[in-house]
């Protein structure tokens, strides 16, 4: 300790813990959105650290579109059991009744109904006034300006012109009834930081991140995993076993796999560092136009 210096990871960790504690102290009904991805895994570990030896004083919320990879759901349920955290799962009942799905309705509509609308329903239903998300500023251009405490009006909308200035580590947690704050404790982490931390802390992640033989079909240049029999095969398509992994996880018909031999954390980081395309390229929803993520955010998408 005598050198009184902290590595950047320990500094990021301390900053995130500070943010998480601040939310627990200042809000009445916080919730942590849990997407089952690697960033959520890191965020969950930070929450455990923040309140150790006590329990995490807020629940996790997973918005289940019913189209997540099966391995994600298994992982989610195991984590909830092992960490003794309260897990809430929400699926949009209207969307479910109308059988909204990515196959027939397309990515945009599916995401809108089963993800964005579902999230708003869940937050309203439970009356949450603060929701943690695992988004990072390095992920995407429009996120570079996102606050750690991102203010949402009572319609859950984000107004880029009306965000509170954020100085030092003094976060303004004041909201009126119905308004809320989305909180991003990983704002200052980069993808590399997240992987380094997972490596250093030995944090479990969904096995889909690691390369394995999996049945996939190639569609419009994207490798789609045939995760269950709901994916209708086009004529001439037969699932092939290929050695693939996922850089990012979401709804399986909307998430492209990459061919890879990276079956350990070290190899994943190695592959990432030597790669020349960015993480979000595997996500189908980003292709909708240059500023599409910004539009989605205004509407309440995370």
């Amino acid at each position: 300790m005598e050198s009184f210096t902290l590595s950047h990871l320990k500094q990021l960790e301390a900053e995130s813990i500070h943010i998480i504690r601040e939310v627990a102290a200042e809000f009445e009904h916080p919730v942590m959105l849990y997407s089952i991805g690697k960033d959520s895994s890191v965020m969950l570990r930070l929450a455990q650290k923040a309140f150790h030896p006590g329990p995490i004083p807020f629940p996790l919320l997973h918005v289940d579109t019913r189209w997540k990879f099966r391995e994600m759901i298994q992982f989610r349920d195991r984590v909830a059991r092992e960490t003794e955290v309260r897990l809430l799962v929400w699926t949009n009942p209207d969307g479910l009744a109308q059988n909204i799905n990515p196959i027939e309705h397309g990515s945009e509509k599916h995401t809108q109904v089963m993800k964005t609308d579902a999230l708003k329903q869940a937050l309203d239903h439970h009356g949450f006034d603060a929701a943690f998300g695992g988004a990072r500023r390095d992920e995407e251009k429009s996120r570079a300006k996102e606050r750690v405490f991102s203010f949402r009006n009572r319609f859950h909308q984000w107004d880029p012109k009306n965000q509170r200035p954020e100085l030092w580590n003094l976060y303004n947690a004041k909201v009126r009834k119905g308004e809320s704050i989305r909180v991003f404790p990983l704002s200052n982490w980069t993808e590399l930081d997240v992987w380094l931390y997972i490596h250093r802390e030995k944090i479990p992640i969904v096995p889909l991140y690691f390369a394995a033989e999996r049945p996939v079909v190639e569609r419009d240049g994207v490798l789609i995993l045939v995760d269950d029999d709901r994916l209708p095969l086009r004529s001439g398509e037969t699932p092939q076993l290929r050695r693939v992994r996922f850089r990012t996880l979401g709804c399986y018909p909307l998430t492209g796999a990459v061919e890879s031999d990276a079956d350990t954390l070290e190899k994943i980081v190695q592959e990432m560092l030597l790669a020349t395309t960015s993480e979000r390229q595997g996500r189908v929803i980003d292709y909708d136009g240059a500023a599409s993520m910004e539009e989605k955010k205004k509407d309440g998408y995370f």
Partner: protein
Amino acid sequence: MTNHEPSTTRRQMHIPDADRIRDDIVGYLRQHEEKDLLRLLTCGSVDDGKSTLIGRLLYDTRMIYEDQLAAVIKDSLVHGTTGTDFDPALLTDGLKAEREQGITIDVAYRYFSTSKRKFIIADTPGHEQYTRNMATGASNCNLAVVLIDARNGVVTQTKRHSFIVSLLGIRHVLVAINKMDLLDWSQDVYETIRRDYNDFVARLGFGDIHFIPISALHGDNIVTPSPNLPWYRGPTLLHHLENVNIVTDRNLIDLRFPVQYVIRPNLDFRGFAGTVASGVLRVGDEVMALPSKQLSRVKSIVTQDGTLDGAFPPMAVTVTLADEIELSRGSLLVHPNNVPRVDSNVEAMLVWMDETPAREGTSFLVKHATNVIPGALAEIRYRMDVNSMRRMPAAEPGQPAALRLNEIGRVHLTLHRPLAFDPYTRNRQMGAFILIDRLTNATVAAGMIVDRAIGRGRRAGKDEPVSQNLSQETSAVSLDQRQALLRQRGGTVWLTGLSGSGKSTIARELEQRLFAEGHLCYVLDGDNVRHGLNRDLGFSAADRTENIRRLGEVARLFNEAGVIVITAFISPYRQDRARARDIVGAGRFFEVFVDAPLEVCETRDPKGLYRKARAGQIPEFTGISAPYEAPEEPSLIVDTTALSPGDAAARIIECIAPLFAE
């Protein structure tokens, strides 16, 4: 001068350390897990090339992928300023609307890293009306990159940005003189700008200023040394960012642990969670809780990764105490012999950030550390003209006093209950606060508590007056009025150095010259203080500390009277001088290190003291049998082996003139 062509047009990604990543990923990970963190701010005017510089850093350290680059090249055709060429500025532009206006209008955060450090860039606009964004971006930074367009030199905005950087407590400044390519890489241009910048910045008190000539567009001196600038021998911009020493920026002296959250999973465990704001907390330490003033001992420091022996900033830990004392969110743990000020009156510099102007009498919520306390803006004392760095009246003629959006002013706040705080210049975390509007919940201002609540306020604990029956009367004549009468501003020139370094001689010389220029000044030295006021004090460390404290208080009284004080004392301990600075007020305290090596001083030995000390006749003699801690960041160093006393005095006057001029 066309060595840059390949870098602007290349499409092939260069991956730093690619071989290492391929051959030794485990070693690579280990190294990167241990790297350091630097937060920096970039400031410059609209066309100084700020976005280009950041784009260049991201590009050259490969924080940009091919698909992102492809998108930028596509964008370059629509929005870019470089024709069909790659415009690095577009890598960093943000929201759609802003991109179409061609300006950035908010704070954006960018990330890149090398094997030594991770960097977080707060990218803030140079646009006139966005003081608030710059203050926001600067609040967490260790270093500021001030961009100057070599064609324009030091302009008003350069000064404004530097002032805000200094106001927000950034100590390291890197002046990047950009677009050198457009001026034929002229050394004269560089030197002129360097001189101009040094001239005006002297009064801002930065500890560390560096200058680097660059071309951000072409990558000269950004990552690799430029062959176009053979006369420049210093580091590249990235090399400087990788190596600048920021460890000493932190306050490791004053323990301040604001309790953020109480963890109580069961009756056997009661832990106080929080982030160490400053100082070092160790197991076994005696601690005082504020505001209750109850004492206890640190029983353990708990983390999920195991218990620790100690914690320092910015660690987030959980503390348990030996006794059940009154402690909750908003409380503060400190060492009982080093306590902050506790007061419900606060003097601060305020950056106003809301469309609705600040008015005297308005009430707010004040968020400071982990406290949220109601309070009111009692008085706007004056406003600062950020361009000239001069004070302006709080009110426009015929108007009530007000602070408008992007204005900076000195204010007096009254709080509903006392707050424990330190001056911002000494302790960033404990001197900073935000104001929250009680109706809209907007964050309307950022505040920095000034060194001393002049004329009001008291300190708690050891520094509190012993008598409980003291009250402070506010004089009917103000400091401003006294200073106006004397046509000068009070201040203290604090000379420190070894015995025989030349302090007293320089002090007398300085006194004479200042007086000749019409300044009322007074020298405090051993002759007039040690024989009277401090006759009860010897030369032990404790007595030296008390000696300096009294000197500080006397200097402050003189300064309050409008007089310039010159002190000539060895004042060997850094902490004592820091305390004197606190007492006097950093804004009017000018520390001069009178520097001469021990051997030289010993040869001079004007009073024969070294000889006696060597003979063992004087115990605890500085330099021989007691330590001298040279200043780490003095306002000025005068080397008396090179300068005559007269030259040294002239040099000091040159630097203090803007500080003490009326």
